[in-house]
């Protein structure tokens, strides 16, 4: 028994030496803090973040019964619904345009995917100016077609749209690149065959293109939703969670409760909910991939 253990330990050692640098960092900055987030969510905390008394599920019951939390979850869902499908749809159209054998198409690929290099802070500052009611070009362009543009960031309904629009633009580059790679994986013969069967234009797009890139579309649906759940910068710079909490999404609420109101326990309970949401999305992702592989 002892010998067997000794042999196992020796067998583990060579691998562990290579893994140690990563593992130490993961333990320090992922796994340990994860346990602490969960622990803090069950405790009352001092304003310094030190846990004081055990609170059981109090933070959670308070959270789930609070009006602000419900509004926040609605805002989160709204933000995701306005952002993710729009960004994927626009990216798909642009990726189809880019997936042509034309001279110089690479220049257009670089231009259209340029937003992958643009940070959320930079993008937010640019859109802040575009949304400006008097100086911004957005309302001017709208006025040209006879629409009186709103005060984007002042009204609750349009503030959510403004943050979503900025995020759609920020995600466009990544989405285009992923979908373009998906499109390039579709064999030319499939399009040939469809063309012989008389498929053209829109029909070709809905019957052939969309189904063929559905794995990439699904991948983006999950990954983009997770990214939207984590979006902080746009909200911090465009709306600060307002007006009247219209854009106080989950992550922003965590930030406000932890680092402005110093209620670390209460914020940690919300962080646990964020964690569960992301875990659920990841499991859905794995589940679907698993099934697809199985049926093939």
């Amino acid at each position, binding site marked *: 028994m002892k010998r067997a253990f000794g042999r196992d330990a020796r067998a583990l050692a060579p691998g562990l030496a290579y893994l140690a640098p990563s*593992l130490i960092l993961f333990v320090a900055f992922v796994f340990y803090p994860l346990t*602490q987030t969960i622990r803090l969510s069950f405790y009352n905390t001092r304003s310094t973040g030190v846990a004081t008394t055990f609170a059981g599920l109090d933070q959670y019951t308070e959270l789930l019964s609070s009006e602000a939390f419900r509004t926040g979850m609605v805002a989160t869902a709204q933000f995701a619904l306005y952002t993710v499908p729009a960004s994927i749809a626009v990216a798909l159209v642009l990726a189809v345009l880019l997936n042509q054998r*034309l001279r110089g198409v690479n220049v257009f690929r670089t231009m259209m*995917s340029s937003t992958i290099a643009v940070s959320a802070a930079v993008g937010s500052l640019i859109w802040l100016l575009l949304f400006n009611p008097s100086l911004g070009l957005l309302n001017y362009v709208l006025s040209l077609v006879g629409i009186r543009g709103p005060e984007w960031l002042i009204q609750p309904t349009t503030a959510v749209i403004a943050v979503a629009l900025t995020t759609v633009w920020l995600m466009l580059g990544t989405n285009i690149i992923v979908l373009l790679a998906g499109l390039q994986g579709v064999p030319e013969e499939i399009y040939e065959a469809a063309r012989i069967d008389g498929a053209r234009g829109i029909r070709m797009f809905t019957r052939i293109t969309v189904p063929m890139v559905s794995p990439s579309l699904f991948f983006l649906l999950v990954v983009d939703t997770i990214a939207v759940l984590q979006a902080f910068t746009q909200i911090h710079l465009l709306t600060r969670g307002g007006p009247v909490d219209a854009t106080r999404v989950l992550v922003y609420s965590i930030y406000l409760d*932890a680092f402005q109101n110093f209620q670390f326990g209460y914020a940690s309970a919300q962080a646990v909910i964020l964690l569960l949401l992301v875990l659920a999305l990841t499991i859905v992702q794995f589940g679907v991939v698993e099934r697809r592989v199985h049926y093939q």
Partner: protein
Amino acid sequence: MSTVTAAAGIRAPRRIRAGRIGAYALLVVGSLLVAFPLLITISYSFMAESDIITFPPPVLPKNPTLHNYEQVLQAIPIGRYLLNSFVVSTVVVIGQLITASLAAFAFSFVQFRGRTVLFFVFLSTLMIPWEATIIPNYITIRSIGWLDTYQGLAVPFMATAFGTFLLRQAFLQIPHELHDSARIDGASSFRFFRSMVLPLTRPALGTVAIYGFLSTYNQYFWPLLITNQTLMRTTQVGIAQLRFEESLRWGLVMAGVVMVALPTLALLVVGQRQLIRGLTAGAVKG
């Protein structure tokens, strides 16, 4: 049948040419729409403040000026912000290359017990959103006195599961016979790693480097939390401070935005291929 193809053969060139012009037109319009916010930012950065506030909003500067750039250099220590961001991003990249390549080597060439379990441990870190651990991480960094330091900005991000998987994929392409013959020649595993594996997988290392640099340089939430001193701020946090000033000078803000975004846009042009490989690595498999 032959007459039909002959007739089509005469018509086709013109139709193809028309189709091609149409395709280019759509590409130009699409590219301009997507890149418009960036293009207008560059334009604004050369515009006098008095022009920006005219109606209708101008698109191109009437009298291009560098005044905004001079102003922003005086308003904020943007050179220092750039230095901070470059130092932190470079340290993260070097750290990630070391930790991820070592781990990827273990997962591709070293046999040991618990390999599968540890692989899942790495995988699980991808499912944990950084924001869910940000409160304890902030408390940790504060308690070890790393607020307002480069190490506080860099060290938490020096391990990467994503980079490890990417490198593992590349390492698995290396024939195992190479490892065997190196061992027969008496080379240690580590020597094989250093003198064979790393040089053979430079493109993948480049992908990890570019990806790591971009994502660190573009961070906002974490540097916002852990820096208070003006001189320790990174580009993103530093430039965003302009938004909260009493009177917003848009020309100045846009000049700052250009200076902050320029390094990443240059990196996109230089390293586009590597970046695309990184972004699609997950999607193609998933």
